[in-house]
């Protein structure tokens, strides 16, 4: 698996959040798909030159979010999207984040059409890869 994770010390995001978000994004984009194995904690810690506990914390956040599952003795794997569930609270949180972005867009003077187009174009970047992923199966 290519090492796409980039660590930025000195950022306002703690390093475990950086690792969590970059792996989440790789899953969303389809660079990592259901059943893929994540690198072992110690291996990733050595490669990124970060504390192994930081990697372990990131993996446990991903597990809490239902994105990966850890099988004792064999490692951490990307979970099946069908088994991921989003509850009302998750959707609510997503809606609030969208509100923030829409507010910013409107304040920048963008119109409704501009925002829709922008959303569509960003979404394509993710869905291209995840569609390809489905076609392969």
């Amino acid at each position, binding site marked *: 698996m290519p090492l796409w994770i980039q660590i930025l*010390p000195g950022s306002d995001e703690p390093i475990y959040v950086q690792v969590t978000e970059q792996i989440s994004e790789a899953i969303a984009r389809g660079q990592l798909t259901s059943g893929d194995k994540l690198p072992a904690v110690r291996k990733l810690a050595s490669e990124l030159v970060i504390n192994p506990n930081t990697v372990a914390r990131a993996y446990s956040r991903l597990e809490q979010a239902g994105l990966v599952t850890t099988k004792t003795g064999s490692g951490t794997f990307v979970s099946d999207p069908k088994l991921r569930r989003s509850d009302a609270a998750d959707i609510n949180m997503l809606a609030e984040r969208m509100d923030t972005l829409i507010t910013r867009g409107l304040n920048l003077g963008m119109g409704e059409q501009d925002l829709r187009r922008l959303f569509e174009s960003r979404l394509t970047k993710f869905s291209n890869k995840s569609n390809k992923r489905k076609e392969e199966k």
Partner: protein
Amino acid sequence: MSEIVLETKALTKYYGDSLAVDHLDLKIPRGCICGFVGRNGAGKTTAIKLMLGLLQPTAGSSRLLGCDSSRLPPAIRQRIGYVTEGHRLFRWMSIAGLEKFQRAFFPNQWDDKFFADMIEYFDLPKKKKIKHLSNGQRAQVSLALALAPNPELLIMDDPTLGLDAAIRRQFLEGMIGLIMREGRTVLFSSHILGDVERVSERIVVIDKGVLRAYCSLEQFQEAVRKVIFTFADSVPNEVNIDGLLHCKRTEKQLELTLVGIDDEQIAEWARSVRAENYDIVKMNLEDQFIEFTAPANQKRLFKWEER
């Protein structure tokens, strides 16, 4: 909680009238990398020398691996690695000569292959004398000498001072590599907070010889935050809130840097002063450290309980 490998109790050191370390209480458990930070002259080097028994405390005590620091027997010393500030090594010795000399102190555990591999990895000529090496090369030798005996406890005093990014990274790799082995503990001081952030699980912050914070890095990063309160008409004259580090006011806004205050307390305070709204702003470690140790805050003490 796991075994404590380094413990200080009210450790205090005066140089004449000047107080360098003031009642330092620390307990470092086995198996972590602990970053030791503080401004210049905060007392880090003195604290480290006291821990290693290289200086006698004026009061208080310190224990390493269960033994009093002022009477560490050779059997305990062999389990401890120490890297001095500035990597002071015998200048007239060659790398090979220095290895032979150092190996004698660690008769049972010196890893010849590890040392040879590191020297090769660093591309250093073994026959070259220390005095003919650059600062960076001397630091590399010092790192190899510190890691070759596979120390249980490694204490490094500002090991990356003045080193380039590549050699600094080698030190971080060395620490991560050591900690991967069972039961190894590292305490290192540094002014480069990006390095501390990368490898540390815990941090110790001292200022003017006084312990200011000792907790997990994550707790520290979560604890120090900036909150910007906006008011409809005017900003309150008096700001009375726990954990206040820094206060900046404009006509309609109040910018507070707070420590150890949770979201609920912030919301409650905002209600009590009738703020129109507020925004919690994340800070990076360097900004957190600067505000935490700013002169105005020197009397405040924050310690977090073990989670």
